[in-house]
């Protein structure tokens, strides 16, 4: 559905504030290059290091019938993200991710903002913009996937796993 020329005013559903975080949250970050290699076999190929997020990515790609069949890790980090502050998670020269844990809800999910910043240069001028900015509540048993941003080859899929 394409609503060209219109900016939608939408309700922002504010979730419950939850409990304030007092200690850093462990965040594991995967940046994945997803491409379409036209694999004859029809089976998705995952490179090394993606075991923790493979099932989630595979399921989503299958469900949405995305034309992606090859996945390679381009960045991986494990950090302790302090509450109410942005922690940087590197991807490449073009994209950088910033996570900011905010609170914990009654189900133990970590409410956080995740921002993927894109740096580019146009007409000799460097610009930075938010390619993706989300506020989500991430459960410890299921990753948050962020994707679709263009890479030089293929698309970027980011996966965030949180734990205490």
């Amino acid at each position: 559905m394409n609503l060209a020329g219109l900016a939608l005013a939408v309700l922002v559903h504010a979730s419950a504030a939850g409990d304030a975080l007092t200690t850093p949250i462990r965040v594991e970050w995967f940046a994945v290059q997803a491409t379409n290699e036209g694999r004859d076999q029809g089976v998705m190929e995952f490179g090394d290091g993606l075991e923790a997020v493979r099932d989630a990515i595979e399921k989503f790609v299958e469900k949405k019938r995305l034309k992606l069949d090859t996945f390679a890790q381009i960045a991986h980090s494990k950090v302790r993200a302090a509450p109410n502050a942005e922690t940087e998670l590197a991807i490449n020269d073009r994209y950088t991710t910033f996570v900011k844990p905010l609170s914990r809800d009654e189900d133990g999910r970590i409410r956080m903002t995740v921002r993927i910043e894109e740096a580019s240069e146009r007409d000799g001028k460097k610009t930075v913009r938010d390619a993706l900015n989300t506020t989500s509540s991430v459960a410890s048993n299921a990753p948050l996937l962020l994707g679709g941003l263009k890479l030089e080859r293929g698309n970027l899929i980011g996966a965030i796993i949180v734990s205490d």
Partner: protein
Amino acid sequence: MSVALESVLLYEGSVTEPDRENRVIEADDAELVSRARTGDFAAYEALVRQYRNDVFALAYHFVRNREEAWDLSQEVFIKAHRALKRFRGDASFKTWVLRITANQCKDFLKKRRLKTVSFDGSPQAANRPSADLDPRDRAEAHELGQAIQRAVDTLPVKHRTAFVLREIEGLSYQEMAGVMNCSVGTVMSRLHHARRKLRNLLEKSGFALEGTSASKENTS
């Protein structure tokens, strides 16, 4: 003292011979796949029945535990069913489903951080030399079996896969290339490295590979 390998009793449990013949069943498989895609589960069951031992045997070679191999094999067929729409039939169904198996085992081993799989000691996996052998030969046969399994377990996954697919499952280089998603040249290279490493390891364990048998060298 050399051990007559044909006297070594293999372990209990279901044992099947690998199908080394080139069976022309691809046309039948194509029809079954086509029907399975439309929701005909009986057709998919026929495929599972046909290839469950190929899948299970490969999984078992990696995890050396019957229950885990069982679970892995079921997951493989569940994944294959989900992916049926994308299977174009350029390779055989067998090659395709073994590729899923190899990937699944690779992920499983990494998740469990199983770099070496210890002999689990379950009755099905125990290597029990024949009662016909005298105690010393039985002990030596058991030792050889353990040495080979230990040696294979130390191989990197890619080399272990190549060795198992060739020597135990009897796949051709072309089939192996399909399962491992690499070229035939890479298959040959991995096989060669696997064999070389295994020979070295067995020799270090005191087993000489000569003639048509392996035997423990008499070091006394």
